[in-house]
């Protein structure tokens, strides 16, 4: 399963790219329209990029009236990402989306670093969202927490059907000449290759803690990167930053992933799910034994 990462593709502006995905995830929709932050909103860094888009979106009313019907015409599975500033926002957004057959999955953006975060906790939001919709709910979490397994468990217990991991992490870039922050908001969300080990660790911990379906993302550029997320526990993989440089990435990564999986002896990519854990578990049980050679000496 290959998806786009929320906010990294506009299916209406690039329908050919979207059609190569197994599902299209919208940019996060908020209760009211948002222009987003002042420019400059993007900056490249050595191993990634920063963005401070600030959830620019038409707001739920215009989204339901104008955007969603046009997206439905594309005839691809639709995931709608929602974000808000209070528990009620999420509940309302989910209630509105619940009525719409075009929507397959709702992704709760609980982790955007570019807006003031929701004050209430993950538990409150997921609980409220759960009460408002029967649609599958994916909780999108940040890796910028002391214990991602604990957050993932909280989301699972509150009724999330799956997890999306990871969102960006706060970063800063300074202008080469002036040392002023490149982004108008100063800091922004850090994405791209630098996130790969962080995303892998978050998926690994959340899979072990919850066993829920997981959309893994963070710096995926190749089939190898996708396979690593799946081995760590992801059941699907989302492409973000890579799409900006390579809109053909969905098809390419899918082909590479199938080939890589076979190279590693898995018939399908999904057969590799959690593979890294199997090896770890056998190791951990090893540790309780005395090393064979040591006892020989």
């Amino acid at each position: 399963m290959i998806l786009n990462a929320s906010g990294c593709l506009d299916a209406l502006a690039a329908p050919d790219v979207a059609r190569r995905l197994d599902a299209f995830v919208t940019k996060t929709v908020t209760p009211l329209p948002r222009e987003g932050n002042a420019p400059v909103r993007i900056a490249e860094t050595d191993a990634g990029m920063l963005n401070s888009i600030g959830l620019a979106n038409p707001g739920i009313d215009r989204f339901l009236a104008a955007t969603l019907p046009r997206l439905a015409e594309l005839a691809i599975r639709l995931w709608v990402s929602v974000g808000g500033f209070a528990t009620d926002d999420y509940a309302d957004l989910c209630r509105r989306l619940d009525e719409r057959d075009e929507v397959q999955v709702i992704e709760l953006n609980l982790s955007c670093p570019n807006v003031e975060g929701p004050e209430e906790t993950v538990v409150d939001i997921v609980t409220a969202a759960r009460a408002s919709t029967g649609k599958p709910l994916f909780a999108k979490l940040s890796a910028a927490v002391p214990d991602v397994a604990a957050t993932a468990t909280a989301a699972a217990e509150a009724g999330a059907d799956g997890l999306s991991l990871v969102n960006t992490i706060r970063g800063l870039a300074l202008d080469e000449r002036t040392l002023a922050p490149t982004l108008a908001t100063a800091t922004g969300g850090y994405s791209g290759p630098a996130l790969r080990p962080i995303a892998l660790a978050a998926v690994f911990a959340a899979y072990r803690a919850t066993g829920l379906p997981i959309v893994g993302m963070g710096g995926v550029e190749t089939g190898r990167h996708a396979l690593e997320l799946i081995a760590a526990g992801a059941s699907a993989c989302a492409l973000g930053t890579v799409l900006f440089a390579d809109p053909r990435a969905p098809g390419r990564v899918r082909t590479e992933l199938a080939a890589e999986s076979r190279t590693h002896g898995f018939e399908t990519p999904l057969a590799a799910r959690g593979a890294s854990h199997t090896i770890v578990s056998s190791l951990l049980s090893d540790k309780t034994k005395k090393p064979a050679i040591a006892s020989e000496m």
Partner: protein
Amino acid sequence: MQREALRVLASEPVGPYRLLRLARGRLDPGMPGQFFMLSPPGHLLPRPMSLCLAPPRELVFLIDPVGKGTRALAEAEPGETMTVLGPLGNGYCLRVEKPLLVGGGIGVAPFPYLSHALGEPPALLGFRTAHHAAAAALVPNAEVVLDPTLVTDVMPSDYDVFACGPEPMLWAVARRAPDAQLAWEAPMACGFGACYGCAVEIGGELRRLCVEGPILELKASRWRKVRRREAA
């Protein structure tokens, strides 16, 4: 929107700029004013570049090496490949009666291709120094002014103006020629509407320059461009 790894044919100095010649592959050169995203080797994100010239089987870009990405583009060696996406955005509208090209600095980049399409109309080009003005040789029928003279000091009226250059120049041109077609710039991560990074304020709203532009007329709507931060 096509994407292809193109072969670098040549990289020639033009004053402080570089003229980068790429084998065209199967890419369409598009309309004057449209742009391509060029991937600098070793960088994550591609950089937007207007098409400068479109001789047979080539795509040619004029590059001002102002930062890491443009320096890497300018340093590409013949024989290497460079991944290019495009053409992107909306070009200039060519159905005008009395065209005049008004540009400044690296803003001359789209003019050689534009001039050809318009039948080599007069052009008025401003540069910081005579060294920079070397780029004027790429534009037919060009008159050059150097700092401290500004193009708007000598710009005739009653022309259909096509402008490209630094923002203060664009604003000054628009004040004197409200119908001018202006080529705007903004940092872009994708160039095809995916990232929302290139937002500028159009008609009172922040909108994507790569989708709505980069060529915009001022008259269409009362709009203001959010001022980009002046560094220090």
